[in-house]
């Protein structure tokens, strides 16, 4: 078997929230306020094979974007490693690291924020391939036309600025910009969340078309389970910084194993569910600053055992390709 394209090994990422001025003053008078630490990502491991689409789901603040940014190399892990084609990216030389970074591109929810408002979009798309010498200067113009056409943009739009486009078109522009550097791996972070329903389908179709044409690999981050179900080969479910379940898409949606995944899937509104009798999961999502001990889900879990309060369950392979982190799987 060949090495996976991407491998994430025991990655954690902490953020330190510095103490604010009021707390500093309080400390000067003898209080003991410490900076707060968020375990945004806590010992996460997974792999993505070449050509695979892996969905990453979970509720806000569970660490999806942080995983995406660590995998993209824009954020360093606090512990653990990210391997690209079998090699730890932290150990690559600067030139190789630059290459790997180019091969991985990120697409975000808000295309407007990520596009330079004062740059014509032809420039926006052509700048990186020119800068990195991926395309000869005399071919750049035709190359940009080509990338734009692939993303459903009229090459005639090249001289326009971002504000002259609709939200859906702007998302096409940011996809074109990402594709222009010939990536192998796209990380889409809520890439259709801000778009109108009728435009979402167009962009999702574009992602699927590009996958087929360019053999792209995707990490598709979304809170929209319907979208993830449609597009992904495998799905990872996170809760408060940890992976709770990981499975082939159809199996996960047919029979989720982890109690949180079960609750999440049960709550997804579907057009076929009429006058539903919502049977809500109890309780709030706890603060990541102060997650419950043991299994993070235990205060909301209908099946919690005494040991769930003290011992965090490990992510284990419970059937081929199916992983879950729950103590219930230990009791035969």
């Amino acid at each position: 078997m060949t090495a996976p394209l991407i491998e994430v090994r025991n990655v954690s990422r902490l953020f330190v929230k510095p103490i604010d001025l009021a707390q500093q003053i309080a400390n000067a008078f003898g209080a003991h306020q410490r900076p707060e630490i968020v375990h945004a990502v806590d010992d996460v491991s997974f792999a993505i094979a070449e050509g695979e689409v892996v969905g990453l789901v979970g509720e806000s603040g569970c660490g999806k974007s942080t995983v995406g940014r660590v995998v993209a190399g824009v954020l360093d892990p606090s512990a653990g490693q990210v391997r690209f084609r079998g090699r730890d990216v932290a150990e690559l030389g600067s030139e190789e690291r630059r290459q790997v970074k180019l091969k991985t591109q990120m697409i975000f929810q808000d295309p407007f924020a990520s596009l330079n408002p004062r740059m014509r979009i032809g420039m926006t798309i052509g700048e990186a391939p020119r800068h990195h010498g991926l395309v000869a200067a005399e071919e750049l113009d035709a190359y940009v036309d080509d990338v734009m056409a692939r993303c459903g943009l009229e090459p005639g739009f090249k001289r326009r600025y971002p504000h002259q486009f609709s939200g859906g078109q702007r998302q096409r522009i940011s996809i074109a910009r990402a594709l222009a550097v010939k990536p192998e791996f796209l990380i889409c972070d809520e890439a259709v969340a801000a778009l109108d329903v009728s435009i979402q389908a167009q962009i999702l179709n574009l992602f699927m078309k590009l996958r087929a044409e360019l053999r792209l690999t995707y990490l598709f981050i979304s809170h929209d389970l319907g979208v993830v179900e449609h597009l992904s080969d495998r799905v990872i479910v996170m809760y408060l910084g940890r992976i709770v379940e990981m499975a082939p898409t159809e199996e996960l949606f047919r029979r989720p194993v982890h109690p949180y995944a079960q609750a999440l899937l049960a709550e997804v509104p579907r057009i076929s569910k009429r006058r539903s009798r919502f049977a809500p999961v109890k309780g709030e999502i706890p603060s990541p600053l102060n997650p419950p001990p043991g299994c993070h889900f235990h205060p909301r879990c209908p099946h919690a055992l005494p040991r769930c309060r003290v011992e965090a369950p490990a992510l284990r392979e419970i059937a081929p390709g199916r992983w879950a982190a729950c103590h219930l799987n230990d009791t035969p």
Partner: protein
Amino acid sequence: MAETLRVENLRTSFLTKWGEVTAVDDVSFSVDAGEILGIVGESGSGKTVTGFSILGLIDPPGRIKGGRILFQDEDLVGLPENRMREYRGKRIAMVFQDPMMTLNPVLRIDTQLIESVLAHDKVDRVTARQRARDALGQVGIPSPDERLASYPHQFSGGMRQRVAIAMALLHRPALIVADEPTTALDVTIQGQILFEVQKLCKESRTALIWISHDLSVVAGLADRVAVMYAGKLVEQGSVDDVLDRPMHPYTSGLIGSLPSNNIRGQPLRQIPGMTPSLLNLSAGCAFRTRCPRADAACLESPPVSVPASGREVRCAHPLVGGGS
């Protein structure tokens, strides 16, 4: 069934520096006591402006230019602001997408809820506090006594939205207009709120208008649904009729494009083109450039047909028997 609200031919427009924008154009619908009406549509289709019009919250440069808003048989259009204020919050309440539109960040929850009771009712503070506690309990806030003494920032987004809903419930209004109240929330929290809201409407016979861009949420919650496109109401009817047998090509296209209505991994059926700007809408059907059924007849303003009572579609060539 008692009709709580009837909106007739509502037209609301805004004067902008590029010209007049008719954000809500000839919109008519009604809601009965205890009924939940979902209003769905894309960004800019006029959902919020419809809600604001009902509550008399349209400020210049906006203006209600025509139509009637009959609330329990009284026309709210043109009602003086002091009269409108008696209705707002007491008999008609609004829940916004951002709960901080309702909540004051610097006041404790109990203070805000109690003030809100006292603003409309002459009761003593003890009674007011009891009402506040009851309202929080109704929206599923555990240990309301302890919670009452907190400030909004000490609550999560879902909790804040529940407090805003509790605030809307304080006076047992006859009508609640809720504008995307769960859009910013996580699904498990959304599920909790939908559960409470549904129960409350049925128990207290409150009429509810639930505005959303999400057909799936409305499918699970509402009794009837109205679909807006570019300021017009293009289709309405019972949830089952509209979602299972859409008659307007836009509704049909929208339903057809949902991932759950497509084969996994295959290209989604998509509506081509993009949402038109309201500024330069030409005459005729605004969906024309994206519609597979469009022809010369669609250059005229499409007629509204009423195939059954409560079922309406605004299209020159409606689909019959649904399907896409």
